[in-house]
């Protein structure tokens, strides 16, 4: 019996922990927003971050999108073949990519690639007193470090998400036409028939929200670093795990609101 109770206790603690985190996170976001009113955004840093999050991630995002689109096409084929609706593979791939997988996969990949580095970079600055040094120089770290990352992430995520979706649909098309040997025109025509503009921009809204979530949590976690390299490692892990959880959670909420 006891181990079951222990188990529930653990779940309870974890939920309390998430709520607690949410509380401090809201305070953090408030501070970041305040910093926006006090100073104008640091353009140099914003630009650096846009390159880091966006341009440098194109390849990896494209690659993920490509494989996911190809797999989707293949999987959809096995199901569609049974009921004889293979012409629906195109819309299946396209809608899955734009509404769901494009934004979510992009967000998870960027969390792994950039969120982790935001947390560890700020974490290292924190433990080596560089954040203190910024503060003594009257430079608000929220303005100088957090906002450029959050805004860059917010701008770049939808762009990356589009790239991912487009390449995914392309991958799906390639599998459809060349590996499965079906009629490519049907693939495209059916997408035009079944996809609405709202599918695309709702996907983009998701990407914007995910971008804000991942950068906010990752930078916020950085400031929590204490101790030594182990402390930086710990907050980096937490940043990636928490961002991913909140992204998936937000995905559910947004899907139920938007579609």
């Amino acid at each position, binding site marked *: 019996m006891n181990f079951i109770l222990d188990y529930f206790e653990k779940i309870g603690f974890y939920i309390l922990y998430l709520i607690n985190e949410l509380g401090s996170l809201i305070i953090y976001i408030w501070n970041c927003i305040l910093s926006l009113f006090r100073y104008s955004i640091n353009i140099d840093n914003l630009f650096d971050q846009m390159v880091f999050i966006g341009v440098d991630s194109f390849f990896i995002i494209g690659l993920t999108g490509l494989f996911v689109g190809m797999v989707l096409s293949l999987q959809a084929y096995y199901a569609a073949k049974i009921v004889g609706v293979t012409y629906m593979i195109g819309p299946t791939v396209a809608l899955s990519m734009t509404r769901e997988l494009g934004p979510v996969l992009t967000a998870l990949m960027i969390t792994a690639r950039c969120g982790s580095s935001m947390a560890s*970079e700020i974490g290292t600055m924190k433990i080596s007193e560089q954040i203190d040094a910024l503060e003594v120089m009257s430079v608000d770290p929220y303005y100088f470090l957090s906002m450029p990352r959050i805004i860059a992430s917010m701008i770049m995520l939808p762009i990356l998400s589009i790239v991912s979706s487009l390449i995914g649909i392309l991958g799906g098309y390639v599998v459809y036409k060349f590996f499965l040997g079906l009629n490519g025109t049907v693939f495209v025509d059916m997408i035009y028939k079944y996809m609405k503009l709202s599918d695309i921009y709702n996907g983009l809204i998701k990407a914007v929200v995910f971008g804000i979530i991942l950068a906010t949590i990752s930078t916020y976690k950085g400031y929590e670093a204490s101790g030594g390299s182990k402390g930086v490692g710990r907050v980096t892990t937490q940043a990636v795990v928490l961002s991913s959880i909140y992204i998936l959670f937000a995905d559910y909420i947004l899907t139920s609101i938007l579609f």
Partner: protein
Amino acid sequence: MIILENIDKSFKGLKVLDNLNISFEDKKITVVIGRSGEGKSVMLKHIVGLIKPDSGRVLFNDIDLNTINKKELNELRKKFGMVFQDGALFDSINIFENIAFPLRQHLKLSEGDIIKKVMSGLNDVGLSGIELKMPSELSGGMRKRVAVARAMILEPEIVLFDEPTTGLDPIMSDVINNLIISTQKQLKYTGIIISHDIEGAYKTADIIAMLYKGAIIETGSAEKFKKSDNPVVKQFVTGSMVGPIVI
């Protein structure tokens, strides 16, 4: 005038500052000495509000740091320059940009003026020619000197030095001590220096204060310290193993 009044500070049950009282006179150099781990760095961070006291007040020209908001605190901090114990250089930008950083943030200077100022600052600490290196490529002592140059670049009213000469060779220590003295004469800043280096303290200080067991046990001129009857002070300045300080 900066006054620390009845400051208490503990970390996880460890009492570091215990009813600490000290005042720092304007345009004078005060050197605070004390053993390693006594809380000197903690005390210094209280002055700029990086650490908040558990109880007690930090007063800057009669303004209580605890009663002002963040914006006012930032305004106030513009009067300060600070050398952190480990330098706290920004490790993602080179030495030039590190020293230029405060200039770029707070003054609108032409690039030419920035270069001139940074180069002369580097020259003062004996480090001409390293401006394109990254902080990780420097020795500990070099980083310390870059930190000194960065802290002084805005010619602040108050400069806090956390062990500016620790880790430097004796000659370089003297160069830094002399730099502190000469710039102080010239710019008339209030200097607060943390140090274990008793000879250096005699040389640079207008006033010396000794921190022991979380409180200031003696303040006064170098002469007063040399002749002090306090057995703790005596043991510290003579660097003896024998005495009331338990090791």
